Structure formats: structure tokens, C-alpha cells
């Protein structure tokens, strides 16, 4: 894909202006590509790639009001967006950084996802020996299920071309807000002083949290499918120092599990990631662990 194709017959000045416009517009942000009931864009956080330094891109889903896409664990129905990367030599893609989802749906069927849109940040690595002569090309082929009452599968291919330089890159003005917003919804490791333990009965997991302060609301999102019943009410009992949250086991959970991983959303606080063994009290996951 090149913008420098020859266009015999067109005045040279027009070609250069058009080429300059095309280059500037694809530099940090590709145009929105249609998906069912919305658009998908691939955006870069910074204006260029610095050889040998990590950088971030993001898949920005904008959806019509009321339509949703899914979290990594979609819950009772649906499926998460799936991405296949086609990258210039020397570029490697990491895993999607999923923001905390919302519970979607009615009483007996509950899904986990994002209504109206979401920005999925993907960390990238750039080899130290990248040449500034060759801009890097990043292409994502995305399969996505977009649902409101009904579900429509879509496919889109989105691309981005970024220059390579030695200096560290400045932020891209158009993209900054999306990255900032997305990071607010990222689950972070809970403070080391917080203690979680998970006990179990025949039909439930009981998550007990000692946070050192009182909370007003808590929702747990299980990272893996088929461990916790999605639709069952999560029964919260608050204490002065924390809470217990009773999570009904999934009917599909036929073998015991050793750990429960997920995202904890406390009212008025940022989301936290939890990875705790079932049975004895432990602290939460260390930073970066999944």
C-alpha cells in the first residue's frame, strides 16, 4: 500500500498536495473503517516510533448508541473482538489491555462488554535496529461481534503507517484523549495492604476483602468463562473494613479450580485486578502479572 503511486496525467502539484495530505492523515490516525453500527480506527499514541522503545497503538471502536462489543470474557453470550496483526519486520504486538467491562443484559442472561464504544490499547515493541528510512506499517485484521438486541458479525482491516526516528516521540494530539480515557478504566493491581481470600461452598465462591476502608458497591468480573455464574446476583455484605461478595458457581464448572482471577470494580474507585487462590488468604497479584 503506497501513496507514491504514479498518476500519469495529473498535474504534479496536485499529486504532491494530495500525497502530503494522505501522509499527514495516516501518520498517527487511520480513517474510521465501517463495522456494523459503528466504525473502527487504529490509532497511535505518539507521532512516531523510536527504534528500540516500546510504543502503544489502540483499536478504537465507536458504536451507535446502545450497541456493544464484548470483554475478553463475554459472559453468557457473544464473543470478544479478535485481532490478527500484520506488522513490519522488527515490530511485535503484545496482548490487548482490556478495560474493565460493564454488566450488560437482563435478569437471566448477563454479558460483559462495552456499550457505545471502547478503546483497546495494544502495547508494541520496536527492534533497536529499525531504520529511519523505512516507516513501519501496522495492520490489524479484526473480527468483531456487534450487538444490541441482535448481533451482527463484522470484519475490518485497519492500518497505520508511522515514521521511525531516533528521538523519543511527542504525543499525537488527536489520540491522547482516547488513550487517557482508556487507561482510567484499566484494572490496576490492588494495593499490597489489601487482603483477599476466597472460600467456597458447594455452589458458591465467597470473596472476602479487607481493604481498611468501607465501600458502597462491588462487582466482580471473572476473567475466565464458565467459573462464575454471570447472571446470578452477586451478594454483597459490607463491613467497616471491606466486604464479602458471594458469587454463585457456574453450572459449567464441573472440576475444582485453584484460583479465581478477575476484575473488581468498587463504586467510585478505579478497577482492580484480582488473582487469588481459593482457600487461603492472600494479597492480590503483583504488578504486571496476569
Amino acid at each position, binding site marked *: 500500500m503506497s501513496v507514491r503511486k504514479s498518476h500519469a496525467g495529473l498535474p504534479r502539484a496536485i499529486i504532491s498536495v494530495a500525497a502530503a495530505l494522505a501522509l499527514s492523515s495516516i501518520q498517527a490516525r487511520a480513517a474510521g473503517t465501517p463495522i456494523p453500527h459503528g466504525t473502527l480506527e487504529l490509532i497511535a499514541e505518539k507521532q512516531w516510533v523510536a527504534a528500540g522503545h516500546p510504543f502503544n497503538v489502540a483499536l478504537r471502536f465507536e458504536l451507535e448508541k446502545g450497541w456493544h462489543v464484548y470483554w475478553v470474557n463475554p459472559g453468557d453470550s457473544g464473543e470478544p473482538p479478535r485481532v490478527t496483526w500484520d506488522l513490519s519486520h522488527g515490530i511485535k504486538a503484545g496482548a490487548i489491555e482490556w478495560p474493565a467491562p460493564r454488566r450488560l443484559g437482563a435478569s437471566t442472561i448477563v454479558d460483559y462488554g462495552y456499550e457505545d464504544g471502547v478503546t483497546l490499547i495494544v502495547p508494541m515493541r520496536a527492534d533497536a535496529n529499525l531504520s529511519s528510512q523505512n516507516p513501519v506499517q501496522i495492520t490489524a485484521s479484526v473480527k468483531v461481534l456487534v450487538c444490541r438486541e441482535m448481533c451482527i458479525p463484522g470484519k475490518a482491516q485497519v492500518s497505520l503507517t508511522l515514521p521511525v526516528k531516533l528521538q523519543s516521540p511527542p504525543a499525537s494530539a488527536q489520540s491522547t484523549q482516547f488513550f487517557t480515557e482508556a487507561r482510567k478504566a484499566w484494572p490496576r493491581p490492588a494495593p499490597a495492604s489489601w487482603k483477599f481470600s476466597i472460600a467456597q461452598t458447594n455452589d458458591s465462591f465467597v470473596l472476602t476483602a479487607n481493604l481498611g476502608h468501607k465501600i458502597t458497591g462491588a462487582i466482580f468480573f471473572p476473567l475466565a468463562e464458565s467459573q462464575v455464574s454471570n447472571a446470578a446476583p452477586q451478594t454483597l455484605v459490607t463491613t467497616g473494613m471491606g466486604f464479602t461478595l458471594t458469587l454463585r458457581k457456574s*453450572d459449567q464448572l464441573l472440576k475444582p479450580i485453584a484460583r479465581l482471577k478477575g476484575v473488581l470494580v468498587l463504586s467510585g474507585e478505579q478497577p482492580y485486578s484480582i488473582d487469588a487462590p481459593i482457600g487461603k488468604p492472600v494479597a492480590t497479584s503483583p504488578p504486571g502479572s496476569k
Partner: protein
Amino acid sequence: MKRSTLSLIIVAIILCAAPLLLAAAKIGDPAPAFTATASDGKTYKLADYRGKYVVLEWHNNGCPYVGKQYESGNMQKLQKQWTGKGVVWFTILSSAPGKQGFVTASDENAYITKMQAAPTAALLDPSGEIGHLYDAKTSPQMVVINPLGVVIYDGAIDDKPTTDLADVPGATNYVSLALEQSMAGKPVATPATRPYGCSVKYSDSSH
């Protein structure tokens, strides 16, 4: 308040709450009994099929996950293959009136003809009663009941939770596996899976 009115109200509350109070069908439990009218106009009672294997297939003709199975011809193939071996196959339509996927008997009969589908019958469940009895979450959720009337499989149709037709040929079909293993006198190796697909479009007011 008159005594008879009060008891009527109590009965109404109990009737409405019953599907919630009864735990949904679980693997190894007796399959909840039901009676339903099918698109062919006949009435079908689960209890009449004791002694046979019964497959329940939650259906919604606008769902792309269902579309994958029918456009590839896979669902029809399974229906023909297993009913040919004496299995009773009920397609179940639990979309409520006004909801996506709701069909009348004649809509469903036209669909069956067009798609050359071959279930034993397509059961109309606009109240969502059968769906709630089995806690059906998605189309195409699948349930297999053995000749003793016990649920031996509940979950996805296969191990490829996508809408891609290309994923059908390489998929492991859990319904066929459950039927094959059970008919061979073996335990079902994978008796419960996450039933992927589109959510069942129940009435907002039903429970």
C-alpha cells in the same frame, strides 16, 4: 379481600416464581417436563419420549451463530443423522412476541422448508417457559437427554464459538460426541460447556 381472590393471587405468585425456584436442569438431573405446541400444529410432551434420546436445540433464525450452522448445512446434517438413528430432535423457539427472532408457526414452517431442516418438531415457546426451565442462555444452545430422561449434555453445539462458516468443518461437535459416547455405554466426557451464541430473547416481563 375475599378468600378466593387471595388464593388466586397466591397461586399466581407461585406459578410465576416456580421457574425461578426450581433450579435449572443440571447434568445428571432429570430433564424438566414440558408440553408444547409445535409449528406443525401438534402437541409434544417430553414425557412421551422416555426410552429415546432427545436433543433440544435453541433456535433463532436471525442469529449469526445459528446462521453459521444452517448456512453450512451442518445443523440439518446433524438433524438427519441423529433422527435417522431414532433420536428425537426438538428445535425450540423461545423469542418472545415483539422480540428479535419471534416467529409464527407458518414463519417457522417456511424456514424449515427453505433450509431443508429436519427436526422432529419445532416447538413454539413464546412465553419462554421451556427456555427458563432449562436456563437456556443462547441460540444455538444444545441439550441432550438420555432414554432415562436424564440430562447428559448442556452447552455449546461445538468448540468453535464464532460466526465463521469456515470454522464448521474442523469443529468438535459436542452433541454428536455426547450421543455417540452415551450410546456406546460410556460416560459423556464433556457434559457441560459454555453455550456460546446470541442471547435468548425472552420477554422483559418474564421473570
